[in-house]
């Protein structure tokens, strides 16, 4: 496990003293965290802790919300993503996101997967076909849908839809993949398949996950961060965090004394 973290010298994402407020409500307080490259980083903690908020700051999806205040920096490959002149659409192509509920776009499986690339200007049909096949394979969905590519996406099962959403993000060949409770609506088998694909995907992508449960966090995490009421209580290696946490609050949460 430690070799994974030592592989890349510079962390892919650096969150530096980030505070964030919705109106009067302080959602994040002075968070500093490094996200290592090509590994799975887990943000866990009880509800309302700010995990989803932090996630959405990384692909600037929270730009759409009005009345917010932010301080601090978030660096991607050393560059401040909130700096002047940053192309937000381009950022979102480098940092993909999968949401808690499967959200297929209206249209066929093909329409869904190729939405991003087409928006980015890709028109060559054979190129698009390659993208389609590659992304669906990476999301472990190709075999199940290869004969139904032109059927409506909302006819797939919940687990399949969620993997479709993963494939959709992968079609843009992002560098980072953000997943917000990706298995919360899924049955155990689909959950297993999604977690499996994370193990494969982390060889090529940097992954940040908000897990569905502490157990899931323990299963997938290379690196973990515990957030409680907007504060970063502690962070470190996955293996250590769940067996011997440093802070008493972390231990209480992990052992189920609250949450």
């Amino acid at each position, binding site marked *: 496990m430690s070799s994974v973290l030592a592989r890349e010298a510079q962390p892919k994402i650096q969150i530096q003293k980030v505070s964030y407020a919705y109106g009067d409500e302080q959602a994040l307080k002075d968070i500093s965290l490094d996200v290592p490259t090509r590994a799975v980083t887990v943000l866990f903690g009880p509800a309302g802790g700010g995990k989803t908020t932090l996630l959405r700051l990384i692909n600037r999806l929270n730009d759409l919300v009005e009345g917010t205040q932010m301080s601090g920096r978030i660096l991607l490959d050393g560059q401040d993503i909130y700096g002047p002149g940053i*192309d937000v*659409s*381009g950022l979102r192509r480098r940092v993909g996101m999968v949401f808690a509920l499967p959200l297929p776009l209206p249209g066929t499986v093909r329409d869904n997967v190729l939405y991003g690339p087409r928006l980015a*200007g890709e028109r060559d049909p054979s190129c698009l076909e390659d993208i389609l096949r590659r992304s669906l394979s990476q999301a472990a969905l190709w075999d199940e849908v290869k004969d139904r590519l032109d059927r409506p996406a909302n006819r797939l099962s919940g687990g399949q839809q969620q993997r479709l959403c993963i494939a959709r993000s992968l079609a843009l060949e992002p560098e980072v993949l953000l997943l917000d409770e990706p298995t919360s609506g899924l049955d155990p088998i689909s959950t297993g398949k999604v977690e499996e694909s994370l193990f494969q995907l982390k060889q090529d992508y940097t992954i940040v996950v908000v897990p569905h449960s502490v157990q899931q966090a323990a299963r997938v995490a290379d690196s973990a961060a515990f957030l409680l009421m907007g504060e970063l209580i502690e962070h470190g290696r996955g293996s250590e965090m769940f067996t011997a946490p440093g802070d008493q609050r972390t231990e209480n949460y992990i052992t189920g004394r609250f949450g």
Partner: protein
Amino acid sequence: MSDSKKTHWGEFVVEAGIRVMGFSTIGFVLLIFSFLLREGVPVFLKVSPANFLGVRWYPTFGLFGMLPLILGSMLVTVVAVTIALPLGVATAVFVREVAPNWAREILKPMIEVLAGIPSVVLGFFGMTIVAPMVRETLGVPTGLTAFAGALILAYMSLPTIISVAEDALDAVPNSYRDAALAMGATQWQTIWRVVVPAARSGIVTAVMLGMGRAIGETMAVMMVTGNAARMPLSLNALFRPVRTMTATIAAEMGEVARGSVHYHALFGIGIALFVLTFLVNLTAARVIFTKRRKGGLR
């Protein structure tokens, strides 16, 4: 890089165009008001207020008293709303709270059909069938009366009243109904003691919008009210011909010389109508606006 620059430029143009179209509505209102003023203000300069507020509208004799017209409009409108209010609210309650599904499937399209029938067609029907009926049943010299006009107008306002009232009833949370029923109330009691009071402001809005619609109606009233510009001062006036502001403009503008006092007077009536309906709709809309913010629906 150049591709994304191109899209950014194209998008900028499109978004600017969309913004313009949004703001054009304000432009149109101002445009309408200013042209009404342009052609209507001269009347206030050429005709004395005593004349304008007088009780005789005889343009050929230089008398431009608007009072009979205003009262004519009021009479027809008030009676129409008096008829339409109970009918409309009752129908809305019926459709929303009581009616079985098959009845609802028939009623809602029917009301939409009514909303679509052109006013000239209803005026035609009123003139050829309703007015004679009024004349025969009530024994009046002519059926072209304020009453007949009010009847037709009531029906024309019904779709507005019904749909807005229905929305108001819809907005009442089901938990209110469930709570009342759980306490042993009958459906009837629930409706009239819980649901309708909760929807009260929406129903008031519905009536105001219906009234605005009635004041502004032209063709139907023109064809049915008999067009006599008399002061409707007694109860009997309901069963005699009367003239509304709208019908006056429609009937006389065609024969008027551009730039004459009569011409400006008709525009003056137009200004009065604009202001009147603006006030009615503003009050109704204010109810909608405050409701929306409190409810936080969107």
